[in-house]
């Protein structure tokens, strides 16, 4: 357990509103990731970070932005939520042994 928490755990929001999901880790891991999980698609990478203020896009980054101002926090923002962004979002970190540890997930519903 890498001490990863996500907040909120559940959120319902309306189309067009901004939403920010927070990931917090206590292990001082350098690398952090945001994935989304949808039925039939497994886990898909949205954005990742390789250090404070160092971020880059993953395979499904459209409509999402991220920020990392501190090692322990990695924020995912939906600038204007759409129904296609209804999903379960997982934050993860990576150890030096290349293993990924995941947070408990955030279930986001966009109505």
């Amino acid at each position, binding site marked *: 357990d890498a001490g990863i928490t996500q907040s909120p755990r559940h959120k319902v929001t309306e189309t067009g509103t901004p939403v920010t999901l927070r990931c917090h880790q206590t292990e001082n891991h350098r690398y952090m*990731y945001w994935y989304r999980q949808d039925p039939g698609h497994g886990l898909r*990478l949205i954005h*990742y970070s390789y250090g404070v203020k160092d971020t880059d896009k993953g395979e499904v980054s459209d409509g999402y932005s991220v920020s990392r101002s501190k090692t322990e926090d990695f924020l995912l923002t939906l600038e204007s939520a759409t129904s296609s962004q209804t999903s379960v979002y997982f934050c993860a970190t990576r150890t030096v042994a*290349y293993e*990924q540890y995941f947070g408990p997930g955030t279930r986001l519903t966009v109505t």
Partner: protein
Amino acid sequence: AQTVTQSQPEMSVQEAETVTLSCTYDTSESDYYLFWYKQPPSRQMILVIRQEAYKQQNATENRFSVNFQKAAKSFSLKISDSQLGDAAMYFCAYRSYINTNAGKSTFGDGTTLTVKP
């Protein structure tokens, strides 16, 4: 780009018996890592086992073992003496040895395992 395929969307096993979950992957790289993750109904993703491609010996963790066939690009997970707590979705994942994309993993679509009492 690497791809990971899990051809069994659902599997079931009787308690105390053995089950094997399949995973194949496509890559042009020679060095990489492979993982199996478990996601129970609580949704928490848990690392089950890892395998380094340069190691010929198959990884084992208690009741969990893998059959790694590098030439065939196959990485199956065997669960022995299945327990009710093994019921979950299992994901196979690939990670390049090269630190591209900060070492992100590519995941398969998952296999849902049901354990029957």
